[in-house]
């Protein structure tokens, strides 16, 4: 069965600092991988996705993520955070064989930005 672990429940960084949010997945083959962001009181919005090809993927709002098969990881990064990046971030995995028909989500990482 697929599973996703986000080891950090809450991270605090200063505005302008770099950010890395960790995501580890368990899946028997190459999965489809996603990062979603949830602002307070809102639904989830897709930041970026990995299906195949280049292991470094670019997303919206200046985010990027790198797929590392050997480490079963798909960490999200941003070189310089802005106060508006404060939100909850979810990593998700989908089955390639099933066309990502269903997604399994991690527990989420809440990001706080210090001014």
């Amino acid at each position, binding site marked *: 069965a697929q599973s*996703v672990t986000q080891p950090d*429940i809450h991270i605090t960084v200063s505005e302008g600092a770099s950010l890395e949010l960790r995501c580890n997945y368990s899946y028997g083959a190459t999965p*489809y991988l*996603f990062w*979603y962001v949830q602002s307070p*009181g*809102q*639904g*989830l*919005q*897709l930041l970026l*996705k990995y*299906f195949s090809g280049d292991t470094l993927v670019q997303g919206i709002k200046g985010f990027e993520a790198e797929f590392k098969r050997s480490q079963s990881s798909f960490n999200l990064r941003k070189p310089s955070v802005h106060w508006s990046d404060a939100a909850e971030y*979810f990593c998700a995995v*989908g089955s390639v064989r099933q*066309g*990502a*028909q*269903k*997604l399994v*989500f*991690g*527990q*989420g990482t809440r990001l706080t930005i210090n001014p």
Partner: protein
Amino acid sequence: NAGVTQTPKFRILKIGQSMTLQCTQDMNHNYMYWYRQDPGMGLKLIYYSVGAGITDKGEVPNGYNVSRSTTEDFPLRLELAAPSQTSVYFCASRASGQGSYEQYFGPGTRLTVT
């Protein structure tokens, strides 16, 4: 283009009451989903549908029912509300074509059962 809309935004139920959470999408998506989000637990899939007339259970279906009579609508029914169903409920949809894997989420319904 409204995307995915959910009603109501908030609701308080007494134990044993029933209600229907409404979800509508105007993107002509075949796939629709219901999730619940509990604090620190991420999103858990309740039910999903791959098209009108076709539904299937997700990870946590107990206590819920769904129907899909049209492409646009995917209501979630709670028959006998229990405190364990206090949660935030999200509806999502996506297209069914190759590579169309992004799920689009509604704003959520916050439900409290007391």
